Protein backbone atom coordinates (compact mmCIF):
# COMPACT_ATOMS: atom_id res chain seq x y z
CA UNK A 1 0.00 0.00 0.00
CA UNK A 2 2.79 2.36 0.94
CA UNK A 3 4.75 1.39 -2.13
CA UNK A 4 1.82 2.17 -4.38
CA UNK A 5 1.25 5.64 -2.98
CA UNK A 6 4.97 6.37 -3.03
CA UNK A 7 4.94 5.50 -6.71
CA UNK A 8 1.89 7.64 -7.23
CA UNK A 9 3.41 10.65 -5.52
CA UNK A 10 6.60 10.25 -7.50
CA UNK A 11 4.60 10.29 -10.68
CA UNK A 12 2.68 13.42 -9.75
CA UNK A 13 5.91 15.12 -8.82
CA UNK A 14 7.57 14.65 -12.12
CA UNK A 15 6.32 17.89 -13.58
CA UNK A 16 9.12 20.44 -13.90
CA UNK A 17 6.99 23.27 -12.58
CA UNK A 18 6.46 21.46 -9.29
CA UNK A 19 10.13 20.71 -8.92
CA UNK A 20 10.88 24.35 -9.49
CA UNK A 21 8.35 25.55 -6.93
CA UNK A 22 9.52 23.01 -4.40
CA UNK A 23 13.14 23.96 -4.75
CA UNK A 24 12.29 27.63 -4.51
CA UNK A 25 10.32 27.00 -1.35
CA UNK A 26 13.15 25.04 0.19
CA UNK A 27 15.72 27.66 -0.72
CA UNK A 28 15.46 29.71 2.50
CA UNK A 29 15.93 26.59 4.57
CA UNK A 30 18.84 25.47 2.44
CA UNK A 31 20.53 28.86 2.66
CA UNK A 32 19.94 29.01 6.40
CA UNK A 33 21.36 25.60 7.05
CA UNK A 34 24.35 26.02 4.80
CA UNK A 35 25.33 29.54 5.76
CA UNK A 36 23.86 30.25 9.15
CA UNK A 37 24.45 26.88 10.71
CA UNK A 38 27.15 24.94 8.93
CA UNK A 39 29.01 27.93 7.57
CA UNK A 40 29.11 29.85 10.83
CA UNK A 41 30.14 26.81 12.84
CA UNK A 42 32.94 26.06 10.42
CA UNK A 43 34.06 29.65 10.40
CA UNK A 44 34.10 29.78 14.18
CA UNK A 45 36.20 26.66 14.29
CA UNK A 46 38.50 28.17 11.69
CA UNK A 47 38.91 31.37 13.71
CA UNK A 48 39.81 29.28 16.74
CA UNK A 49 42.90 28.17 14.87
CA UNK A 50 44.05 31.73 14.24
CA UNK A 51 45.45 34.49 16.35
CA UNK A 52 42.49 36.79 15.82
CA UNK A 53 41.88 39.54 18.31
CA UNK A 54 39.40 42.25 17.40
CA UNK A 55 39.20 41.17 13.79
CA UNK A 56 39.69 37.80 12.21
CA UNK A 57 43.26 37.11 11.23
CA UNK A 58 44.02 34.69 8.41
CA UNK A 59 46.96 32.90 9.85
CA UNK A 60 47.12 29.44 11.34
CA UNK A 61 48.31 28.83 14.85
CA UNK A 62 47.13 25.31 15.35
CA UNK A 63 45.95 24.55 18.84
CA UNK A 64 47.60 27.59 20.40
CA UNK A 65 44.30 29.17 21.38
CA UNK A 66 43.18 25.97 23.01
CA UNK A 67 46.25 25.63 25.14
CA UNK A 68 45.94 29.27 26.07
CA UNK A 69 42.30 28.69 26.88
CA UNK A 70 42.97 25.89 29.28
CA UNK A 71 45.66 27.99 30.88
CA UNK A 72 43.20 30.77 31.63
CA UNK A 73 41.95 30.59 35.17
CA UNK A 74 38.63 32.13 34.33
CA UNK A 75 37.91 29.43 31.77
CA UNK A 76 38.84 26.65 34.16
CA UNK A 77 36.58 28.16 36.79
CA UNK A 78 33.77 28.42 34.27
CA UNK A 79 34.14 24.76 33.36
CA UNK A 80 34.16 23.72 36.99
CA UNK A 81 31.09 25.83 37.56
CA UNK A 82 29.43 24.25 34.55
CA UNK A 83 29.91 20.82 36.06
CA UNK A 84 28.68 21.87 39.49
CA UNK A 85 25.77 23.78 38.03
CA UNK A 86 24.94 21.02 35.59
CA UNK A 87 24.90 18.22 38.11
CA UNK A 88 22.92 20.19 40.67
CA UNK A 89 20.50 21.60 38.17
CA UNK A 90 19.81 18.38 36.28
CA UNK A 91 19.52 16.19 39.36
CA UNK A 92 17.24 18.50 41.30
CA UNK A 93 15.07 19.40 38.34
CA UNK A 94 14.54 15.77 37.40
CA UNK A 95 13.90 14.72 40.96
CA UNK A 96 11.50 17.52 41.83
CA UNK A 97 9.80 17.35 38.47
CA UNK A 98 9.32 13.62 38.85
CA UNK A 99 7.98 13.88 42.39
CA UNK A 100 5.60 16.64 41.40
CA UNK A 101 4.34 14.59 38.47
CA UNK A 102 3.86 11.48 40.58
CA UNK A 103 2.05 13.29 43.37
CA UNK A 104 -0.22 15.18 41.02
CA UNK A 105 -1.01 11.87 39.34
CA UNK A 106 -2.56 10.68 42.61
CA UNK A 107 -5.95 12.12 41.75
CA UNK A 108 -5.56 15.17 43.94
CA UNK A 109 -8.11 17.91 44.06
CA UNK A 110 -7.21 21.20 42.48
CA UNK A 111 -4.89 19.53 40.01
CA UNK A 112 -5.31 22.21 37.39
CA UNK A 113 -4.45 24.96 39.85
CA UNK A 114 -1.37 23.11 41.06
CA UNK A 115 -0.16 22.48 37.53
CA UNK A 116 -0.57 26.16 36.70
CA UNK A 117 1.45 27.11 39.78
CA UNK A 118 4.29 24.73 39.03
CA UNK A 119 4.57 25.64 35.37
CA UNK A 120 4.27 29.44 35.40
CA UNK A 121 7.98 30.04 36.13
CA UNK A 122 8.74 28.49 32.77
CA UNK A 123 6.84 31.31 31.10
CA UNK A 124 9.17 33.87 32.63
CA UNK A 125 12.46 34.78 31.04
CA UNK A 126 15.68 33.54 32.59
CA UNK A 127 16.61 37.16 33.14
CA UNK A 128 13.53 37.81 35.23
CA UNK A 129 14.16 34.62 37.17
CA UNK A 130 17.74 35.61 37.88
CA UNK A 131 16.69 39.07 39.02
CA UNK A 132 13.92 37.88 41.29
CA UNK A 133 16.14 35.36 42.99
CA UNK A 134 18.94 37.87 43.24
CA UNK A 135 16.56 40.04 45.23
CA UNK A 136 15.09 37.23 47.29
CA UNK A 137 18.48 35.86 48.29
CA UNK A 138 19.88 39.29 49.10
CA UNK A 139 21.59 38.76 52.47
CA UNK A 140 20.82 42.16 54.03
CA UNK A 141 17.29 42.61 52.83
CA UNK A 142 16.12 39.27 51.59
CA UNK A 143 15.57 35.76 52.86
CA UNK A 144 18.40 35.70 55.40
CA UNK A 145 17.37 38.95 56.99
CA UNK A 146 13.68 38.09 57.04
CA UNK A 147 14.16 34.77 58.77
CA UNK A 148 16.52 36.38 61.28
CA UNK A 149 13.88 38.93 62.08
CA UNK A 150 11.36 36.15 62.60
CA UNK A 151 13.55 34.74 65.33
CA UNK A 152 16.11 32.46 63.73
CA UNK A 153 18.94 34.82 64.63
CA UNK A 154 21.69 32.47 63.58
CA UNK A 155 20.22 31.75 60.15
CA UNK A 156 22.69 32.07 57.35
CA UNK A 157 21.87 32.05 53.67
CA UNK A 158 24.32 34.37 52.04
CA UNK A 159 25.21 31.96 49.27
CA UNK A 160 24.77 34.58 46.63
CA UNK A 161 27.80 36.49 47.92
CA UNK A 162 29.86 33.47 48.96
CA UNK A 163 32.39 32.42 46.36
CA UNK A 164 32.14 28.69 46.77
CA UNK A 165 28.37 28.58 47.11
CA UNK A 166 27.10 31.12 44.61
CA UNK A 167 26.91 28.69 41.71
CA UNK A 168 24.52 26.57 43.71
CA UNK A 169 22.29 29.57 44.29
CA UNK A 170 22.19 30.09 40.53
CA UNK A 171 21.37 26.43 39.99
CA UNK A 172 18.61 26.76 42.55
CA UNK A 173 17.00 29.58 40.62
CA UNK A 174 17.20 27.57 37.41
CA UNK A 175 15.60 24.58 39.11
CA UNK A 176 12.72 26.83 40.15
CA UNK A 177 12.28 27.80 36.54
CA UNK A 178 12.47 24.39 34.91
CA UNK A 179 11.07 21.85 37.37
CA UNK A 180 7.55 22.58 36.21
CA UNK A 181 8.53 21.77 32.66
CA UNK A 182 9.92 18.38 33.63
CA UNK A 183 6.76 17.82 35.63
CA UNK A 184 4.61 18.53 32.57
CA UNK A 185 6.61 16.20 30.36
CA UNK A 186 6.70 13.36 32.88
CA UNK A 187 3.05 13.77 33.82
CA UNK A 188 2.12 13.25 30.20
CA UNK A 189 4.24 10.12 30.23
CA UNK A 190 2.63 8.88 33.44
CA UNK A 191 -0.83 9.45 32.05
CA UNK A 192 0.13 7.33 29.07
CA UNK A 193 0.50 4.27 31.26
CA UNK A 194 -2.49 2.02 30.67
CA UNK A 195 -4.91 1.95 33.57
CA UNK A 196 -5.13 -1.81 33.27
CA UNK A 197 -1.47 -2.13 34.28
CA UNK A 198 -2.40 -0.45 37.54
CA UNK A 199 -5.31 -2.84 38.01
CA UNK A 200 -3.11 -5.86 37.32
CA UNK A 201 -0.57 -4.57 39.83
CA UNK A 202 -3.29 -4.16 42.44
CA UNK A 203 -4.40 -7.71 41.94
CA UNK A 204 -0.80 -8.89 42.17
CA UNK A 205 -0.64 -7.05 45.46
CA UNK A 206 2.12 -4.66 44.48
CA UNK A 207 2.17 -1.46 46.59
CA UNK A 208 1.83 1.80 44.61
CA UNK A 209 5.34 3.08 45.30
CA UNK A 210 6.76 -0.16 43.98
CA UNK A 211 4.61 0.10 40.87
CA UNK A 212 6.15 3.50 40.17
CA UNK A 213 9.69 2.32 40.73
CA UNK A 214 9.64 -1.11 39.07
CA UNK A 215 6.97 -0.80 36.41
CA UNK A 216 6.10 2.80 35.55
CA UNK A 217 9.55 4.33 35.63
CA UNK A 218 11.02 1.81 33.19
CA UNK A 219 8.01 2.41 30.96
CA UNK A 220 8.56 6.17 30.82
CA UNK A 221 12.33 5.83 30.57
CA UNK A 222 12.41 7.30 27.03
CA UNK A 223 10.63 10.47 28.24
CA UNK A 224 13.02 10.72 31.15
CA UNK A 225 15.96 10.30 28.80
CA UNK A 226 14.64 13.04 26.53
CA UNK A 227 14.11 15.34 29.49
CA UNK A 228 17.63 14.56 30.63
CA UNK A 229 19.18 15.45 27.31
CA UNK A 230 17.22 18.67 27.04
CA UNK A 231 18.19 19.66 30.57
CA UNK A 232 21.81 18.89 29.79
CA UNK A 233 21.76 21.14 26.77
CA UNK A 234 20.04 23.86 28.74
CA UNK A 235 22.78 23.60 31.35
CA UNK A 236 25.55 23.83 28.77
CA UNK A 237 24.02 26.96 27.30
CA UNK A 238 23.37 28.73 30.63
CA UNK A 239 23.92 32.45 30.26
CA UNK A 240 20.94 34.72 30.96
CA UNK A 241 20.35 33.66 34.51
CA UNK A 242 24.01 34.11 35.48
CA UNK A 243 24.25 37.55 33.93
CA UNK A 244 21.06 38.66 35.62
CA UNK A 245 21.56 37.06 38.98
CA UNK A 246 25.22 37.51 39.79
CA UNK A 247 26.95 38.97 36.76
CA UNK A 248 29.43 36.13 37.07
CA UNK A 249 30.40 37.15 40.57
CA UNK A 250 31.35 37.59 43.21
CA UNK A 251 34.55 38.08 41.22
CA UNK A 252 34.53 35.17 38.82
CA UNK A 253 32.96 32.72 41.22
CA UNK A 254 29.86 32.12 39.11
CA UNK A 255 31.47 32.39 35.71
CA UNK A 256 30.10 30.01 33.10
CA UNK A 257 31.45 29.08 29.65
CA UNK A 258 28.72 30.84 27.69
CA UNK A 259 29.40 34.07 29.53
CA UNK A 260 33.15 33.67 29.14
CA UNK A 261 32.69 33.39 25.41
CA UNK A 262 30.43 36.44 25.13
CA UNK A 263 32.78 38.53 27.26
CA UNK A 264 35.87 37.60 25.25
CA UNK A 265 34.04 37.90 21.96
CA UNK A 266 32.79 41.43 22.39
CA UNK A 267 34.09 42.90 25.59
CA UNK A 268 37.70 41.80 25.58
CA UNK A 269 37.92 41.49 21.81
CA UNK A 270 39.74 38.20 21.65
CA UNK A 271 38.06 36.33 18.84
CA UNK A 272 40.55 33.50 18.69
CA UNK A 273 40.23 32.58 22.32
CA UNK A 274 36.46 32.99 22.34
CA UNK A 275 36.08 30.82 19.23
CA UNK A 276 38.21 28.13 20.79
CA UNK A 277 35.95 28.25 23.81
CA UNK A 278 32.82 27.97 21.66
CA UNK A 279 34.27 24.99 19.86
CA UNK A 280 34.89 23.30 23.18
CA UNK A 281 31.28 24.03 24.12
CA UNK A 282 30.15 22.60 20.80
CA UNK A 283 32.04 19.38 21.41
CA UNK A 284 30.56 19.14 24.90
CA UNK A 285 27.04 19.43 23.54
CA UNK A 286 27.82 16.90 20.84
CA UNK A 287 29.02 14.34 23.37
CA UNK A 288 25.57 14.27 24.94
CA UNK A 289 23.70 14.49 21.70
CA UNK A 290 25.43 11.74 19.76
CA UNK A 291 24.74 8.78 22.04
CA UNK A 292 21.17 9.91 22.59
CA UNK A 293 20.39 10.27 18.90
CA UNK A 294 22.05 6.95 18.21
CA UNK A 295 19.96 5.27 20.89
CA UNK A 296 16.82 6.91 19.54
CA UNK A 297 17.37 5.80 15.97
CA UNK A 298 18.22 2.30 17.13
CA UNK A 299 15.02 2.12 19.12
CA UNK A 300 13.04 3.31 16.12
CA UNK A 301 14.62 0.72 13.88
CA UNK A 302 13.96 -2.00 16.40
CA UNK A 303 10.37 -0.89 16.80
CA UNK A 304 9.83 -1.14 13.07
CA UNK A 305 11.21 -4.66 12.92
CA UNK A 306 10.46 -6.17 16.27
CA UNK A 307 6.68 -5.98 16.61
CA UNK A 308 5.22 -9.45 16.23
Amino acid at each position, binding site marked *: MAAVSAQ*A*SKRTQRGP*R*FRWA*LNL*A*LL*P*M*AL*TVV*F*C*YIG*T*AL*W*SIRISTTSSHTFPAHDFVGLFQYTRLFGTERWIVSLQNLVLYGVTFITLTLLIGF*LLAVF*IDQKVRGEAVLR*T*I*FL*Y*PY*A*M*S*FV*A*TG*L*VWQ*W*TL*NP*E*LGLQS*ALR*QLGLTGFKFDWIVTQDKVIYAVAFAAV*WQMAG*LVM*AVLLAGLRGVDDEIWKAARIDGIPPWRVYVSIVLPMIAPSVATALVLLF*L*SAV*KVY*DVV*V*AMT*GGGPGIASEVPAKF*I*LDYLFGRANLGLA*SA*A*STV*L*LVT*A*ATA*LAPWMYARSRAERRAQQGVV
Partner: protein
Amino acid sequence: MSVLTSNATAPVANVRRARPARPWLTPARIGIYGFLIISAAFFLLPLYVMIATSLKTMDQIRLGAIFSLPTTPEIDAWIQAWSSACTGLECRGIRVGFWNSVRIVVPSTIISILAGALNGYALSFWRSRWADWLFTVLILGAFIPYQVFLYPMVRGLAFFGLFGSLSGIVIVHTVFGMPVMTLLFRNYYASLPQELFKAARIDGGGFWRIFFQLMIPMSTPILIVAVILQVTNIWNDFLFGLVFAGRENQPMTVQLNNVINSTTGERLYNVNMAATILTSLVPLVIYLVSGRWFVRGIAAGAVKG
Protein backbone atom coordinates in the same frame (compact mmCIF):
# COMPACT_ATOMS: atom_id res chain seq x y z
CA MET B 1 -37.12 -20.97 32.90
CA SER B 2 -36.51 -19.13 36.10
CA VAL B 3 -34.18 -16.21 36.13
CA LEU B 4 -31.90 -17.70 38.73
CA THR B 5 -31.19 -21.38 38.53
CA SER B 6 -30.11 -21.77 42.13
CA ASN B 7 -30.76 -20.46 45.52
CA ALA B 8 -28.62 -17.43 46.08
CA THR B 9 -28.41 -17.04 49.79
CA ALA B 10 -25.01 -16.91 51.41
CA PRO B 11 -23.72 -19.80 53.47
CA VAL B 12 -25.33 -19.32 56.83
CA ALA B 13 -22.37 -20.53 58.82
CA ASN B 14 -20.06 -17.76 57.58
CA VAL B 15 -20.12 -14.41 59.23
CA ARG B 16 -20.49 -11.20 57.32
CA ARG B 17 -17.71 -8.72 57.95
CA ALA B 18 -18.47 -5.20 58.82
CA ARG B 19 -17.64 -2.39 56.47
CA PRO B 20 -14.22 -1.06 57.45
CA ALA B 21 -13.81 2.58 58.28
CA ARG B 22 -12.10 4.25 55.34
CA PRO B 23 -11.15 7.72 56.37
CA TRP B 24 -10.35 10.00 53.49
CA LEU B 25 -7.42 11.53 55.31
CA THR B 26 -4.78 8.82 55.58
CA PRO B 27 -1.11 9.44 56.34
CA ALA B 28 -0.38 8.91 52.67
CA ARG B 29 -2.86 11.60 51.65
CA ILE B 30 -1.42 13.99 54.22
CA GLY B 31 2.07 13.38 52.87
CA ILE B 32 0.98 13.97 49.28
CA TYR B 33 -0.93 17.14 49.95
CA GLY B 34 1.80 18.34 52.30
CA PHE B 35 4.46 17.98 49.68
CA LEU B 36 2.34 19.60 47.02
CA ILE B 37 1.35 22.53 49.17
CA ILE B 38 4.90 23.17 50.35
CA SER B 39 6.11 22.95 46.76
CA ALA B 40 3.40 25.33 45.65
CA ALA B 41 4.51 27.78 48.31
CA PHE B 42 8.10 27.49 47.10
CA PHE B 43 7.03 28.17 43.55
CA LEU B 44 4.78 31.06 44.43
CA LEU B 45 7.23 32.68 46.82
CA PRO B 46 9.18 34.70 44.27
CA LEU B 47 5.98 35.88 42.64
CA TYR B 48 4.72 37.12 45.97
CA VAL B 49 8.04 38.76 46.73
CA MET B 50 8.03 40.46 43.36
CA ILE B 51 4.55 41.86 43.71
CA ALA B 52 4.86 42.80 47.36
CA THR B 53 8.20 44.52 46.90
CA SER B 54 6.96 46.48 43.94
CA LEU B 55 4.14 47.90 46.02
CA LYS B 56 6.23 48.84 49.04
CA THR B 57 7.96 52.11 49.74
CA MET B 58 11.75 52.12 49.91
CA ASP B 59 11.51 52.94 53.61
CA GLN B 60 9.69 49.73 54.27
CA ILE B 61 12.03 47.77 52.04
CA ARG B 62 15.07 49.00 53.93
CA LEU B 63 13.60 47.46 57.07
CA GLY B 64 14.38 44.16 55.50
CA ALA B 65 11.30 41.99 56.05
CA ILE B 66 10.99 40.69 52.55
CA PHE B 67 7.96 38.56 53.24
CA SER B 68 5.86 41.21 54.89
CA LEU B 69 2.89 42.73 53.20
CA PRO B 70 3.15 46.30 52.01
CA THR B 71 1.96 48.58 54.80
CA THR B 72 0.94 51.35 52.47
CA PRO B 73 0.82 49.93 48.97
CA GLU B 74 1.73 52.42 46.27
CA ILE B 75 2.10 52.13 42.57
CA ASP B 76 4.75 54.84 42.34
CA ALA B 77 7.42 52.25 41.71
CA TRP B 78 5.46 50.95 38.76
CA ILE B 79 5.06 54.33 37.23
CA GLN B 80 8.71 55.05 37.69
CA ALA B 81 9.73 51.73 36.21
CA TRP B 82 7.54 52.27 33.21
CA SER B 83 8.37 55.83 32.36
CA SER B 84 11.49 57.09 34.08
CA ALA B 85 13.81 54.27 35.06
CA CYS B 86 17.32 54.47 33.66
CA THR B 87 18.08 51.85 31.05
CA GLY B 88 21.70 52.70 30.31
CA LEU B 89 22.18 56.17 28.88
CA GLU B 90 18.58 57.27 28.87
CA CYS B 91 16.05 57.45 31.64
CA ARG B 92 12.82 57.07 29.77
CA GLY B 93 11.65 53.98 31.57
CA ILE B 94 11.21 50.44 30.48
CA ARG B 95 8.31 51.26 28.22
CA VAL B 96 10.89 51.93 25.56
CA GLY B 97 11.97 48.34 25.87
CA PHE B 98 8.36 47.22 25.84
CA TRP B 99 7.67 48.74 22.50
CA ASN B 100 11.01 47.56 21.18
CA SER B 101 10.10 44.05 22.19
CA VAL B 102 6.77 44.38 20.46
CA ARG B 103 8.45 45.61 17.31
CA ILE B 104 10.81 42.68 17.42
CA VAL B 105 8.35 39.99 18.40
CA VAL B 106 5.63 40.69 15.86
CA PRO B 107 7.63 40.47 12.64
CA SER B 108 9.90 37.73 14.01
CA THR B 109 6.93 35.59 14.96
CA ILE B 110 5.19 36.06 11.65
CA ILE B 111 8.22 35.41 9.49
CA SER B 112 9.58 32.49 11.50
CA ILE B 113 6.17 30.82 11.52
CA LEU B 114 5.72 31.32 7.80
CA ALA B 115 9.17 29.90 7.16
CA GLY B 116 8.49 26.94 9.44
CA ALA B 117 5.13 26.27 7.82
CA LEU B 118 6.56 26.41 4.35
CA ASN B 119 9.43 24.13 5.27
CA GLY B 120 7.14 21.72 7.07
CA TYR B 121 4.78 21.64 4.12
CA ALA B 122 7.55 21.07 1.61
CA LEU B 123 9.15 18.35 3.70
CA SER B 124 6.05 16.38 4.56
CA PHE B 125 4.20 16.30 1.29
CA TRP B 126 6.95 16.43 -1.27
CA ARG B 127 9.62 13.82 -0.81
CA SER B 128 13.14 14.91 -1.51
CA ARG B 129 16.25 13.14 -0.32
CA TRP B 130 18.47 16.15 -0.03
CA ALA B 131 15.77 18.13 1.75
CA ASP B 132 15.41 15.43 4.39
CA TRP B 133 19.15 15.50 4.94
CA LEU B 134 19.02 19.28 5.25
CA PHE B 135 16.27 18.97 7.80
CA THR B 136 18.31 16.59 9.93
CA VAL B 137 21.20 19.06 9.98
CA LEU B 138 18.78 21.85 10.88
CA ILE B 139 17.47 19.91 13.84
CA LEU B 140 20.99 19.12 15.00
CA GLY B 141 21.76 22.80 14.77
CA ALA B 142 19.06 23.53 17.31
CA PHE B 143 21.00 21.68 19.96
CA ILE B 144 24.24 23.57 19.50
CA PRO B 145 25.06 26.42 21.87
CA TYR B 146 24.46 29.72 20.10
CA GLN B 147 27.88 31.10 20.94
CA VAL B 148 29.34 29.07 18.09
CA PHE B 149 27.27 31.00 15.56
CA LEU B 150 27.52 34.44 17.09
CA TYR B 151 30.56 36.15 15.66
CA PRO B 152 30.09 34.91 12.08
CA MET B 153 26.45 36.00 12.22
CA VAL B 154 27.57 39.43 13.39
CA ARG B 155 29.99 39.72 10.51
CA GLY B 156 27.46 38.37 8.06
CA LEU B 157 24.81 40.85 9.09
CA ALA B 158 27.32 43.68 9.13
CA PHE B 159 28.24 42.79 5.58
CA PHE B 160 24.66 43.39 4.53
CA GLY B 161 24.42 46.49 6.69
CA LEU B 162 21.84 44.87 8.90
CA PHE B 163 23.82 44.54 12.09
CA GLY B 164 22.24 46.44 14.96
CA SER B 165 19.01 46.97 13.07
CA LEU B 166 15.50 45.70 13.54
CA SER B 167 15.72 43.62 10.38
CA GLY B 168 18.91 42.09 11.68
CA ILE B 169 17.39 40.82 14.89
CA VAL B 170 14.30 39.62 13.07
CA ILE B 171 16.51 37.61 10.72
CA VAL B 172 18.40 36.17 13.67
CA HIS B 173 15.20 35.07 15.39
CA THR B 174 13.90 33.56 12.19
CA VAL B 175 17.11 31.64 11.58
CA PHE B 176 17.35 30.26 15.09
CA GLY B 177 13.65 29.59 15.41
CA MET B 178 13.59 27.66 12.16
CA PRO B 179 14.45 24.22 13.57
CA VAL B 180 11.64 24.13 16.10
CA MET B 181 9.08 25.74 13.82
CA THR B 182 9.91 23.42 10.95
CA LEU B 183 9.71 20.40 13.23
CA LEU B 184 6.39 21.57 14.59
CA PHE B 185 4.76 22.06 11.21
CA ARG B 186 6.31 19.03 9.62
CA ASN B 187 4.96 16.76 12.32
CA TYR B 188 1.58 18.42 12.12
CA TYR B 189 1.29 18.12 8.35
CA ALA B 190 2.50 14.53 8.52
CA SER B 191 -0.43 13.78 10.79
CA LEU B 192 -2.96 15.15 8.29
CA PRO B 193 -4.50 12.62 5.92
CA GLN B 194 -2.58 12.34 2.69
CA GLU B 195 -5.83 11.97 0.79
CA LEU B 196 -6.61 15.64 1.21
CA PHE B 197 -3.41 16.58 -0.47
CA LYS B 198 -3.88 14.08 -3.28
CA ALA B 199 -7.44 15.26 -3.87
CA ALA B 200 -6.16 18.82 -4.17
CA ARG B 201 -3.55 17.73 -6.69
CA ILE B 202 -6.21 15.97 -8.74
CA ASP B 203 -8.27 19.14 -8.61
CA GLY B 204 -5.33 20.83 -10.27
CA GLY B 205 -3.73 22.60 -7.36
CA GLY B 206 -0.10 23.59 -7.71
CA PHE B 207 2.53 23.89 -5.01
CA TRP B 208 1.70 27.41 -3.81
CA ARG B 209 -2.05 27.15 -4.33
CA ILE B 210 -2.29 24.13 -2.11
CA PHE B 211 -0.12 25.76 0.51
CA PHE B 212 -2.02 29.00 0.83
CA GLN B 213 -5.52 27.82 0.11
CA LEU B 214 -5.58 24.40 1.75
CA MET B 215 -2.78 23.93 4.24
CA ILE B 216 -2.67 27.27 5.99
CA PRO B 217 -6.42 27.37 6.68
CA MET B 218 -6.19 23.88 8.08
CA SER B 219 -3.30 24.75 10.34
CA THR B 220 -5.16 26.67 13.01
CA PRO B 221 -4.31 24.43 15.99
CA ILE B 222 -0.63 24.31 15.19
CA LEU B 223 -0.56 28.02 14.39
CA ILE B 224 -1.85 28.76 17.86
CA VAL B 225 0.83 26.57 19.41
CA ALA B 226 3.51 28.11 17.19
CA VAL B 227 2.46 31.65 18.03
CA ILE B 228 2.51 30.92 21.74
CA LEU B 229 5.93 29.31 21.50
CA GLN B 230 7.50 32.02 19.40
CA VAL B 231 6.03 34.97 21.23
CA THR B 232 7.10 33.52 24.56
CA ASN B 233 10.59 32.53 23.45
CA ILE B 234 11.35 35.68 21.49
CA TRP B 235 9.93 37.98 24.14
CA ASN B 236 12.01 36.21 26.79
CA ASP B 237 15.15 36.17 24.71
CA PHE B 238 18.15 37.99 26.10
CA LEU B 239 21.26 36.88 24.24
CA PHE B 240 20.22 37.77 20.70
CA GLY B 241 18.65 41.01 21.80
CA LEU B 242 21.86 41.95 23.55
CA VAL B 243 24.09 41.21 20.59
CA PHE B 244 22.04 41.96 17.51
CA ALA B 245 19.31 44.44 18.29
CA GLY B 246 21.31 47.59 18.43
CA ARG B 247 20.87 50.39 20.92
CA GLU B 248 17.65 51.76 19.48
CA ASN B 249 15.91 48.41 19.48
CA GLN B 250 16.94 46.88 22.76
CA PRO B 251 14.23 44.48 23.92
CA MET B 252 12.69 44.67 27.33
CA THR B 253 14.80 41.87 28.82
CA VAL B 254 18.03 43.65 27.99
CA GLN B 255 16.72 46.93 29.33
CA LEU B 256 15.49 45.21 32.45
CA ASN B 257 18.95 43.88 33.13
CA ASN B 258 20.34 47.36 32.60
CA VAL B 259 17.85 48.91 34.96
CA ILE B 260 18.69 46.55 37.74
CA ASN B 261 22.31 45.65 37.35
CA SER B 262 23.87 48.83 36.10
CA THR B 263 22.44 51.47 38.35
CA THR B 264 24.78 53.61 40.34
CA GLY B 265 23.67 54.94 43.65
CA GLU B 266 21.00 53.37 45.73
CA ARG B 267 19.14 50.49 44.20
CA LEU B 268 15.43 51.06 44.10
CA TYR B 269 14.23 47.56 44.71
CA ASN B 270 10.59 48.38 44.34
CA VAL B 271 11.22 49.89 40.94
CA ASN B 272 13.37 46.90 40.01
CA MET B 273 10.66 44.44 40.91
CA ALA B 274 8.00 46.47 39.17
CA ALA B 275 10.16 46.48 36.05
CA THR B 276 10.65 42.72 36.35
CA ILE B 277 6.92 42.13 36.57
CA LEU B 278 6.27 44.41 33.64
CA THR B 279 8.80 42.51 31.56
CA SER B 280 7.27 39.17 32.48
CA LEU B 281 3.70 40.32 32.01
CA VAL B 282 3.24 39.47 28.36
CA PRO B 283 4.40 35.84 28.51
CA LEU B 284 2.68 35.27 31.83
CA VAL B 285 -0.62 36.52 30.49
CA ILE B 286 -0.22 34.33 27.43
CA TYR B 287 0.52 31.41 29.71
CA LEU B 288 -2.48 31.97 31.93
CA VAL B 289 -4.82 32.51 29.03
CA SER B 290 -3.62 29.71 26.80
CA GLY B 291 -3.52 26.93 29.38
CA ARG B 292 -3.68 23.68 27.42
CA TRP B 293 -2.17 25.20 24.28
CA PHE B 294 0.94 26.19 26.20
CA VAL B 295 1.45 22.64 27.38
CA ARG B 296 0.95 21.38 23.83
CA GLY B 297 3.69 23.73 22.78
CA ILE B 298 6.02 22.20 25.32
CA ALA B 299 5.08 18.71 24.25
CA ALA B 300 5.91 19.64 20.67
CA GLY B 301 9.51 19.68 21.75
CA ALA B 302 10.33 23.28 22.46
CA VAL B 303 12.54 23.53 25.48
CA LYS B 304 14.20 26.87 25.44
CA GLY B 305 17.55 27.83 26.81
